[in-house]
């Protein structure tokens, strides 16, 4: 008998009331219950970062967070970055700099970059590479990804 627990979670600014299985992760619930498929599933061991979301202001691997742990929490996914249909400066920078190749790692990269810039608005390239070190890219677009983050930081200054 699967234990089901009601939770209240705010996702991308919208309050949701859900009933979740105890053994389902936040990643499962975001993708399967809420249809927010921007967050991706890959390694399931907290290595690749494809499932990165913001949880109460910090980036985490949602594959390692049980859905029940998100009760009373604020979650932001890649779908929450754009505002009123306008790309965030970070998303725009990713486009402008050609940071996305196959695109599968990009939602996770964007979340990690978003968190990095919130914490450190003027990062250097080495700081960016370290801040995004938990996000694997097999297309290995790391240079263009980090240049995009730098460009977004510089755009925010202006």
């Amino acid at each position, binding site marked *: 008998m*699967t234990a089901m627990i009601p939770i209240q979670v705010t996702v991308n600014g919208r309050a949701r009331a859900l009933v979740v*299985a105890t*053994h389902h992760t936040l990643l499962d619930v975001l*993708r*399967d219950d809420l*249809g*927010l*498929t*921007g*967050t*991706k*599933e*890959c*390694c*399931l*061991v907290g*290595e*690749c970062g*494809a499932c990165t979301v913001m949880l109460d202001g910090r980036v985490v691997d949602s594959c390692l967070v049980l859905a029940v742990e998100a009760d009373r929490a604020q979650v932001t*996914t*890649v*779908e929450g*970055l*754009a505002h009123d249909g306008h*790309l965030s400066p970070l*998303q725009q920078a*990713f*486009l*402008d*700099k*050609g940071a*996305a*190749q*196959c*695109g*599968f*790692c*990009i*939602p996770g990269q*964007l979340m990690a970059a978003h968190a990095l810039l919130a914490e450190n608005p003027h990062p250097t390239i080495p700081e960016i*590479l*370290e801040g*995004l*070190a938990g*996000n*694997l*890219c*097999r*297309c*290995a*677009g*790391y*240079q*263009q*990804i*980090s240049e995009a983050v730098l460009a977004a930081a510089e755009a925010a200054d202006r």
Partner: protein
Amino acid sequence: MSANGIGASPARVGGIGRVTGSQLYVADIRLQDVLHVKLVTLDCARARIVSIDTSAAEQVPGVRLVMTAAELPQPVPRFGPQFSDRPVLAVGETKYHGEPVAAVAAETKDAAEEAARLVWVEYEELPAIFSIAAALDPASPLVQDPAIRPNDPLAGTNVLREHRFGWGDVDAVAASADLVVENTYTFPMVTHFAIEPHGFMAAPDGDGIAVWSTIQHPNWLQKIIATILGLPLAKVRVFAPDPGGGFGGKQHAKLEPLVAFMALETGRPCRLILTLDETFQAVRRSSTEVRVRAGFRSDGRLVFRDIEANYLVGAYADIADRTVSKGGYASSGPYRVPAVRIVARSILSHTTPSTAFRGFGNPQPIWAVESNMDEAARALGIDPLEIRLRNLARRGEAFNPSDTPADGDWEQTVRRAAELIGWGSPLPPGRGRGIAVGMKSGPTTGLSYSTVRLLVDGSVIVYAGTSDMGQGARTVFAQIAAQELGAPIEWITVVMGDTAVVPYDQQTSASRSTVLMGNAVLAACRDVQAKLRAMAARLHGVDEAQVVVQRGVVRLPGRDLPILDILKPGLGRLGGELIGNGEMRKDAEPDHPLGGSAAFYEFNCTAVEAEVDEGTGDITLLRHVTVSDVGKALNPLQARGQDEGAAIQGLGHTLMEHYIYDEKGRIRNLGAIDYRIPTSMDLPLELHSEIVENGDGPGPYGSKGMSEGSLLCVAPAVAAAVRDATGVVIRDLPLTPERVWRALQERPTP
């Protein structure tokens, strides 16, 4: 050059979907009433299946089907791009760690997982072959049933194919060499590790079937499914969303046939998304032992090359043997060599079926031949750059007598890389430099169709069956249409990945699509332009021959008009559109050793500056330079991403990637924790890519294919730098810190 046209770098078409998370990959597509599929596999490299008891699994609430080989048509259908050897489900025996034995379809993922755990397989473990030596031992068991290739003299061995290539007479000229260097070099088993695991869905579709797959070759998959199910092609619809990275691992059918049978059996859509661990068990690159014996004159000029390349492929051939023939055939490299003898073998083993992987059989012999060249340079006291320049084929030279002559100024590429790395300038102690070249043949045959529709408002729809898995094909085709039809890129839609809607494309591989599909798109645009010319002639009462359509402008005698000024009146009150079709074909050449000569070559020179921590064996790449000969970069930003990405991916097998097996042939390091790929922290301190553009390619606007070149010779360049810094020669990849440390320990003390 407009901001959207050729040579510009407009934002990636499909980029918005990628940065907003709205792009739907296979795993994101929701089908109504879908059943979730979970595979049942054995924790064993090879086993005889004694019995399968599905009764407990069938009792799990929500389970709709437990499929084993017994539920499939008998004999169990087999498929594969080269041999029809791979069964839809294991028959009687599992031949590699992870070969599916059964599959469960259930209403929920949880139910499918639970049921899969309850499928009880009684099996007897059998001795597994997972090394070249074991496979070649006549006393070893055969991996493949000899009946699969009757009339093949090798059928009684584990050698699937033995390919012989070459020219001249090695034995006759060998004596004239002043130096002969002979060594064996090994390349590990590595896996693609696309961040998107493979995904497969199938659903009954009227009297046919619809299949969704992360496949790189949708039309090829369509053919496989149609054949296996006994359906006409027109009743098999393949949806191929942009894959989240392919690198060759998604080229050919893997589990689509199984999911298709399950969909037909249940009458419901079925969905199977592999876990990352399962992808490691599904696809890999062939590992190799390559023996190179090369003879040089004292001035460094090559006299002969004698190459024996043994590739360990998996339990089923997939496309691996083709990688062996293509890689083996080109293994002497872009050099002028009077006599060459090549034997390249694909050798079966009880391991994950190896398949295409960026470089397609070339990185392995390049590792050997370039390392061997470096050793010869050292022995002769000749600069490693100089020795290459002395032997490098010049433009137009038929360095391989049965193939396309050198199609670029390769020396220019090499000199540029040397210049960028500062070759020849003094280095502080403890640092070394290495340089290597890599060459790979492009496609040998090809067939791409494209349709382009110019709509009444000047917007455009391009149909192209290429798979865009990050290399940016979609954007390039849009740029071609923008260039030719004058539409801004935001007014161009590129439709791909649906065999019911998009005309035939042979495949997406061998860096072919800019050249083959690009030319088809170009031809389709020219077809539209021809119709515009006819329209303009009719409207303005001039001869067609006097009308030129170029870059969105219609040039009449005495005036230029934008396309819309012809199109709207030309289509008239009923409106409509202009439809153009284009085809690009490269026919087979039956007498050619590979079935066709190279459409173009990818040529790359990589140079590296490195430092080695002799206490730990850590390699620090201070500077990594990669220069590729691309003809014309239609989208420089995308080209850069591909080149740098390929270079970093190459650092993977160079420095850290390898499967680790246990003594029974099971993979120990499944998953992301113990299979290491480069992260953002593993970049060289400086990575610089450049392209050489001489407009000398067969593709649109003088382009060649690119995106594999920068991976080809990373390993020998790094190893050469390590040797330059420390004196140690390492002939086995990867150059992990421990292995470098060991080599340093064994270094003879001066």
